[in-house]
């Protein structure tokens, strides 16, 4: 049966670009500290001295109010203001007043002092009341005149265009007092007016107090109470615009947008020129997703205040949220021109570019934003998303880290980081992040969905299902959730549940090609091939480019015997993705079925070149070529059979995962092909040796069975027969490359069936430890080792040994018949050249490729894999040359110079390393003769030409002989040196040397 692929269900919904920041400009009017309401208001009377009679009349009229404690009038007492008085007026009395009473006449309008006082009143925002004494031109008196009169006043600003007539004027309707008959009626009107004015001010002051209280409560987040306070303020003073504004803010914070809008509406009624009000109402509209209303508001705000940066920015955001990116960017551009140092605008524009897919511009904007304000998490998160979209996950994670450091409570940043790790294949780390996001925001379905996907890909479908169920609990309409859960059921093999989910998914989204594909696979796994084909067909209809559906339908056609249709599907898939080895392999299998051998071979070869382990695939489908031929009564051509046959291998390695989730080969074809090439270079080590390699013996408890020299001498001294079973012994860690030192410890070799009574001294010694010896498992007697006499034969033979853990391949030659514990691996052979082979880089590379390499050092010797090492077929001369240099190395390892760290002997060390490289060269030539010779790289011949002496032939000081040989071979003109130096121009050598 061929592989049926689940369509990759990595449909992760990324959280959208981090919500763009809004810019409030709150209008929290800072209320001045005012005296308590019950205190009389201070009234300042301004008049022309010509009108002192009227002033006195006014004072008389105010007398009752003064006694009531409502007002405390002040006037200059008719003294012509000298400097001292002037100062008293302008720095103390007038600025402290609450109410300003201006007796208007032609004279007062003309008076310089009166105008200066008016100016100060305007500046200090004192409530003015005009008392019109006579008919004069006060109605047309422009306040801008004041400026001309008052040298120091530059404050006019908002008053500029106003006139005196904009102030409250008394008596009623501004009718001058001298026109009233009787005049007392006029004065009565004045008094009533002032009384009303005082009441208003008192109310305003109360309202102000309530407003301040509201502000205070709002900062305390006591929103309800704040709203109450603002309402009170508005009740007291229905024109109190700031109270409306702040109440709107409070409503908004509460989430009560309708009421907020109501307040803004009121605000605008009372203050139709307030650009801020429009801006803020726009924000609320935007939050209600009423973008058109929002944009209208922002338009109005900009109309009123054409350099209103925030309004441009907000309008941009409103367009952005409607996916009108171009217009949004235009608005942001304007905002940037108005204020190039506003970090938030860059962030927003960046987000817009990001949504448009213009990554470079987006990154640039986010970076600018970060430079302007490095303490804001948003742009980091956003930039991370853009990097993630560019598949630069490392950078993305870096940015998310920063965002999380700045704002550790933002669940979306954790989700984003999780997604990045997810794409990197680090599912466990991504799950950690989703956990954190869920902890922060347990109601968001997205975290569960993503966590489910991660669990599923991490091979834990049960936990994935739990998570998907959580998603459905929270958001039954979550996109693709049923598809995802169905795929998880499918992975678990619960096909019916899977189909149910896919049906449900299609109910919600009937145009999802991926779901149809999955549904097809579920049907196929159930054996419902017609349904499967229908589903795949639907998937293809919806998305004709979906490679998986073409391949999968092909597989089902193939199973149904419609081989030609299958081939058509695979061919289509190849057109869509020429790098998909599955399509090639499957088509190859189809050609095989049609006995189109050449075409089959071509497709299989392509699949192999694309990095697929086709032999393993074939094994999974048909076991092997023989079985295939037997079952189908055909005979494959030899070359094709060879392509699909694993030669000389004891067993199949665990099926290696050759493709990642997207169908790309995980390993480069260079690596895969070289591994295969080496594997086929010759018989495996076990076949070659015809003898069994194994670990040493279990000597537990070692402290009993292995003794030092003193104990050994005692034992022999007590009874000479002890010497027969005291064997020189080594642990794995005692073994060095090439050579083993003569051991300084001995093993009491009490093999099974030993006549222990012949060795009384040993028996006595062992009896001291009888208790721990008896606690061992196994069938041996308490004094015996779990070893037989056969072991003794094994140890006595010449052999290669290596420790069971090591950094580098560490094989040594042992011809002395030492004994070893189970931390050593023994290969019985006399062929020393094999030691050179096993220590070579080529074998070390091959071994690291086939063994289940532990993720961390050190490497570990595993019998099964060591026995698989292929032994190249080479001439005896070749072997002898390697063996000769192995002998040099064994001898060198024993020299004191080599073991010295004195830099005097640095060159001797280079010599040792160089001889190892020479062996490497000879081994490369053994495994890869064609590649080396094509590039004119040879080692054997120049070494033979050199006439190297064997170790026995070297007379006298071996060290100086080695040095001579080394200097000759190391010369820059020597072929060996030159070929070693330039060897890595050959591609497979670069692979082995880790340079590719």
């Amino acid at each position, binding site marked *: 049966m061929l592989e049926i692929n689940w369509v990759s269900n990595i449909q992760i919904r990324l959280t959208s670009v981090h919500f763009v920041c809004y810019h409030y400009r709150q209008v929290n009017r800072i209320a001045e500290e005012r005296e308590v309401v019950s205190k009389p208001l201070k009234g300042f009377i301004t008049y022309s001295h010509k009108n002192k009679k009227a002033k006195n009349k006014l004072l008389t009229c105010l007398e009752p109010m003064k006694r009531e404690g409502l007002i405390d009038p002040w006037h200059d007492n008719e003294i012509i203001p000298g400097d001292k008085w002037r100062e008293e007026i302008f720095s103390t009395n007038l600025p402290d007043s609450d109410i300003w009473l201006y007796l208007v006449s032609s004279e007062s309008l003309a008076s310089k002092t009166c105008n200066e006082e008016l100016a100060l009143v305007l500046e200090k925002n004192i409530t003015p009341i005009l008392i019109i004494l006579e008919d004069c031109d006060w109605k047309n008196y422009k306040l801008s005149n004041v400026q001309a009169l008052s040298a120091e006043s530059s404050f006019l600003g908002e008053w500029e265009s106003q006139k005196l007539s904009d102030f409250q004027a008394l008596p009623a309707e501004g009718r001058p007092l001298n026109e009233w008959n009787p005049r007392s009626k006029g004065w009565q009107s004045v008094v009533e007016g002032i009384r009303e004015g005082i009441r208003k001010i008192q109310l305003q002051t109360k309202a102000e107090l309530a407003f301040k209280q509201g502000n205070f409560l709002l900062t305390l987040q006591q929103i309800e109470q704040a709203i109450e306070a603002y309402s009170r303020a508005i009740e007291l003073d229905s024109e109190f615009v700031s109270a409306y504004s702040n109440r709107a803010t409070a409503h908004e914070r509460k989430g009560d947008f309708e009421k907020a809008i109501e307040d803004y509406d009121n605000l605008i009624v009372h203050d139709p020129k307030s650009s801020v009000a429009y801006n803020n109402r726009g924000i609320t509209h935007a939050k209600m997703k009423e973008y058109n209303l929002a944009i209208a508001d922002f338009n109005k705000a900009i109309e009123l205040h054409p350099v209103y940066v925030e309004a441009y920015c907000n309008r941009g955001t409103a367009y952005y949220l409607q996916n009108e990116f171009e217009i949004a960017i235009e608005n942001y551009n304007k905002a940037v021109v108005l204020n190039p140092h506003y970090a938030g605008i860059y962030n927003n524009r960046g987000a817009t570019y990001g949504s448009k897919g213009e990554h470079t511009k987006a990154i640039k904007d986010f970076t600018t934003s970060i430079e302007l304000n490095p303490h804001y998490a948003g742009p980091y998160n956003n930039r991370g998303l853009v990097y993630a979209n560019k598949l630069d996950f490392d950078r993305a994670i870096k940015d998310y880290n920063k965002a999380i450091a700045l704002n550790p409570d933002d669940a979306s940043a954790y989700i984003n980081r999780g997604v990045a790790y997810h794409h990197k294949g680090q599912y466990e780390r991504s799950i950690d992040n989703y956990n954190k996001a869920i902890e922060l925001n347990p109601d968001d379905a997205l975290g569960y969905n993503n966590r489910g996907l991660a669990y599923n890909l991490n091979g834990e479908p049960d936990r994935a299902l739990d998570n998907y169920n959580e998603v459905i609990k929270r958001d039954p309409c979550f996109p693709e959730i049923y598809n995802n859960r169905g795929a998880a059921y499918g992975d678990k093999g619960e096909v019916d549940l899977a189909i149910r989910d896919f049906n449900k998914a299609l109910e919600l989204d009937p145009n999802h090609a991926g779901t149809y594909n999955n549904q097809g696979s579920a049907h196929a796994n159930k054996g419902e091939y017609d349904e499967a084909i229908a589903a795949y067909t639907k998937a293809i209809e919806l998305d004709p480019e979906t490679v998986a559906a073409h391949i999968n339908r092909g597989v089902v056609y193939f199973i149904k015997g419609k081989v030609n249709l299958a081939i058509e599907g695979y061919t289509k898939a190849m057109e869509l993705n020429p790098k998909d080895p599955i399509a090639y392999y499957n088509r190859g299998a189809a050609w095989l079925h049609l006995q189109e051998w050449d075409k089959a071979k071509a497709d299989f070869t392509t699949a192999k070149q694309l990095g697929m382990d086709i032999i393993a695939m074939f094994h999974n489908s048909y076991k092997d070529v023989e079985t295939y031929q037997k079952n189908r009564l055909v005979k494959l051509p030899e070359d094709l059979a060879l392509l699909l046959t694993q030669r000389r291998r004891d067993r199949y390695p665990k099926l290696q995962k050759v493709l990642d989730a997207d169908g790309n080969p995980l390993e480069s074809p260079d690596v895969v092909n070289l591994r295969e090439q080496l594997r086929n270079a010759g018989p495996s080590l076990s076949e070659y040796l015809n003898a069994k390699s194994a670990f040493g013996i279990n000597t537990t408890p070692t402290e009993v069975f292995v003794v030092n020299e003193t104990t050994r001498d005692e034992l022999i001294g007590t009874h000479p027969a002890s010497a027969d079973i005291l064997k020189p012994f080594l642990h794995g860690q005692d073994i060095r490359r090439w050579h083993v030192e003569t051991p300084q410890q001995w093993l009491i070799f009490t093999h099974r069936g030993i006549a222990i009574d012949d060795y009384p001294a040993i028996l006595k010694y062992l009896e001291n430890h009888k208790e721990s010896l008896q606690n061992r498992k196994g069938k041996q007697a308490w004094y015996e080792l779990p070893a037989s006499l056969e072991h003794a034969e094994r140890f006595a033979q010449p052999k290669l040994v290596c420790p069971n853990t090591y950094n580098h391949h560490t094989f040594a030659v042992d011809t002395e018949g030492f004994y070893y514990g189970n931390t050593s691996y023994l290969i019985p052979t006399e062929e020393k050249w094999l030691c050179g082979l096993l220590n070579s880089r080529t074998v070390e590379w091959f071994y690291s490729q086939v063994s289940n390499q532990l993720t961390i050092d050190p490497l570990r010797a595993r019998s099964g894999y060591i026995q698989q090492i292929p032994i190249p077929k080479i001439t005896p001369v070749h072997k002898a040359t390697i063996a000769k240099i192995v002998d040099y190395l064994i001898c060198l390892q024993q020299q004191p110079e080599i073991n010295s760290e004195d830099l005097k002997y640095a*060159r001797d060390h280079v010599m040792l390393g*160089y001889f190892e490289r020479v062996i490497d060269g000879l081994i490369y030539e053994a495994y890869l003769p064609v590649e080396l010779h094509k590039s*004119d790289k040879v080692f054997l011949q120049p070494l033979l030409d050199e006439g190297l002496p064997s170790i026995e032939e070297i007379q006298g000081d071996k060290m100086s002989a080695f040095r001579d040989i080394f200097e000759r071979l190391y010369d*820059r003109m020597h072929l060996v*040196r030159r*070929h070693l130096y*330039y060897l*890595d*121009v050959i591609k497979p050598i670069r692979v082995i040397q880790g*340079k590719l």
Partner: protein
Amino acid sequence: MKITDIEIKNFRAFPQIYHIDLHNAGKNLLVYGENGSGKSSLYLALKFFLESGVPENSEDNKNQAFETHQNIFTEDPGHIKLRFLSAPQQEKNTYKWSRDVKEITDELISETSKAKGFLDYKVLLETHYLHRENDIVNLFDLLVEVLLANTINPRTDRPLTVDWNAIQPPFPRRGAKHQIADLERQVVNFNRELTNRLAELSPKVSEILNKFGYKVALDFDFQGVTYNQGEKTLDNREILLKVEFFDTNIPSHHRFLNEAKLSAIAIAIYLSSILCLPEPKGGMKILALDDVLIGLDMSNRLPVLDILNEYFSDYQIFLTTYDKAWYEIAKQRTDQKDWKYAEFYFGKTDEYELPIYVEDKAYLEKAREYLDTNDYKACAIYVRTAFEAAIKRYCEKRNLAVKYRENPKDLKSEDFWVPIKMETDEAGDLLLDLRVVDKIELARKFILNELSHDTFVNIYRKELEDAIDAVTELEVALA
């Protein structure tokens, strides 16, 4: 095996196609270039081209993509093409490196890259930062991180810089016994390797330094770096320069190692490290020195030419300089047969900057060109230049006594010509045939005399032709 043609398109400073013809012989190239004119781009073009063949796991990886070197004024895809001639009469091979050709897989290029020597002036700037106290100079950083950084350790097949980086922080935490032991083992191996490397280098360095005229023997004092477990530092990063003077007459030894000499020593070390490389199979060896001679006194530059001549005669050499005076001198001191001369000028148009590449043909060749186009005045200038160059070069080559003038610029052609006229060969006969002397004298009256500018109006074609003949014969006689 030599490079015969270089074609550079849209690479770094070059916004268009530039073609440099090194003739079928694969000549060496001497380039004069103003700053910013593109000579360094040419150097880098060659360097990255060769390195694209060896995608090692080294820091240089970032140079592997052509895109990163695209000329900024154009978006048209660029490339670098080199043509090689492996032997006379054989077919040329063309190799191309571009956006589409990520890596040149040919083994020959890879091999050439491993055998090459590329040194630029920045390296010599490093000599100015060397710590120096009482004439004790620590060369450790210069050697390990710059001059020898890319040399290959024969035991590990890795560049020295990779071995060095392997023992850099973060160091293992205290108490991590295995890791510390591992680090210390690597430190010992690094020390051994560096010791060995220095031992191989030092005789060659002394030899080359002697060519600079310094009668000294150089040696390196390296005791090995050590890992300080307590402080978690790598100590004893010291390679001290030991100078032994043969000539005891040098009055103040302690001022021997000035910056110019250190530059010379650095060049000597680098060249020695190249000379210690194993011989490549293809026989293609390239040496490129980008402005490196600027750190040297003029008196030290000429010996470099001798050194190149003596030790690097089988290399194809690329020399660049921004010093016009030195360029002119080097031109005279090198053999036209082996060398090609070119000049880069900085050009600017409305749209972009571009290097202007001027091939410096032989003067006489140019003179003939102008004669053909009937530009007699220009022709006369070139003939005269050819004459002066020939006699000056001869005098310098033979160390002929030339009349002393305080300012060398005041030397007149007469000052060189007179001694040459008098020059005799071993047999005591005059070197120059009297017939040649007559011809030259005749030509000098009208054309070769530099004081005769105002008489140029009446130059006749025949006289120019005669002058060209005369100088041609003179060049032959003086060769």
